[in-house]
């Protein structure tokens, strides 16, 4: 092969690369721009969805206060541009009836975002709703569609050891909900484990904060 041919070959390869890189750059910039533009709208709508889900998982609540966490990790009331992380459910008289925690984690196809309710006095969950997911239709999507399974979270009792340390929820066929177990579903193994792990992680993160701050978060004792 001559030098000329060699240079032509390299030139051709470089041209191919340049076109691909240029198209990829324009594509990436366009996607990033539209993402930045639409994200606040999506988050605003999701905020509403999280609130609706919070009322569903806190059966006695008619209203709520929304909290996020500050840089110090302590909960503070939601401000403009914040993401909701905790809903404190209030009944018609304004009394606290429980907490709904927002959790998220990787599912089978994409990130799963969910809200689950917590009754700290009774030591049990009061419900769970998946707010955003892209699990496989007909398989993993049962975490949204199978209402028997979704409603079973309202019967799950939290388990603590002798030192008041929370024991994580476990996935099991024929689950005993009163012993902190979640029903396994064949065909949706990854999605079910993902939901259980999200709840376990969120509980481990939030329980100490709620135990320490709950009296203040209810508002009544603070005012």
């Amino acid at each position: 092969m001559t030098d000329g041919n060699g240079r032509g070959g390299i030139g051709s390869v470089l041209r191919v690369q340049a076109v691909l890189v240029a198209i990829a750059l324009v594509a990436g910039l366009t996607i990033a721009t539209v993402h930045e533009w639409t994200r606040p709208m999506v988050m605003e709508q999701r905020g509403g969805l999280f609130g609706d889900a919070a009322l569903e998982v806190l059966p006695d609540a008619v209203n709520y206060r929304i909290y996020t966490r500050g840089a110090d990790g302590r909960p503070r009331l939601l401000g403009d541009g914040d993401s909701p992380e905790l809903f404190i459910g209030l009944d018609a008289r304004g009394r606290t009836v429980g907490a709904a925690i927002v959790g998220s984690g990787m599912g089978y196809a994409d990130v799963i975002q969910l809200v689950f309710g917590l009754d700290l006095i009774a030591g049990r969950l009061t419900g769970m709703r998946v707010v955003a997911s892209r699990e496989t239709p007909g398989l993993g999507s049962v975490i949204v569609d199978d209402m028997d399974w979704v409603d079973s979270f309202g019967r799950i009792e939290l388990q603590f050891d002798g030192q008041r340390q929370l024991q994580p929820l476990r996935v099991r066929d024929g689950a005993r909900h009163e012993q902190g177990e979640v029903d396994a579903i064949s065909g949706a193994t990854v999605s079910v484990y993902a939901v259980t792990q999200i709840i376990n992680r969120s509980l481990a993160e939030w329980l100490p904060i709620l135990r320490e701050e709950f009296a203040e978060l209810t508002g009544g004792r603070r005012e």
Partner: protein
Amino acid sequence: MSDSATVSERENGLQRFRAGLWRENPILIQALGMCPTLAVSNTAINALTMSLATASVLLASAIVISTLRGIIPPQVRLACFVLVIATFVTLTDMLIEAFALDLHRALGAFLPLIVVNCMILSRIEIMASRQPASVAALDALGMGGGFMIGLITLGSLREVLGRGTLLDARVMPADFEPWQVMQLPGGGFFTLAALVIGFYLFDRRWRRQEVGA
């Protein structure tokens, strides 16, 4: 040169537009893009949103690729096509999520799957990468329109028979017992088969009348 070329270009484009709507309908004749056809055609509104999204992606991708066809090297044309299509699918996905979150939830994983819709890739490879933007755009409009006609007809039939409603408004008598099977994948296959047979019989009769006249 330019006048006659423009006229033939326009005629060619209009011919492609009509072909996509009827004689080469992507769903009823070519049987392309069956995954969304059967998965999200359980209601008219799902079918409308899905087909609009697919048609928009096809139109935008066809115009961009036709415009860039002179600079896209043949060795990487498929990579470039997929890159452009995937960009428009992602943009469509984000826009639907921002402006119609409920519909976005209903369509779920099928929106991103538009990127592998073989109807789009085939139109890009056959038409957009070889024809001027005006012809490619008219071809995309015809194919997108044909896809919408097929999908919306399918969605409307399945919603009416499977739920007794059309666009969520009740159209069947109150004592009508919905055919649950029409909302399941089996009902999708059955309705599609009935539609294809009906379309074939109607088209054959029409052609005979044309020949007779």
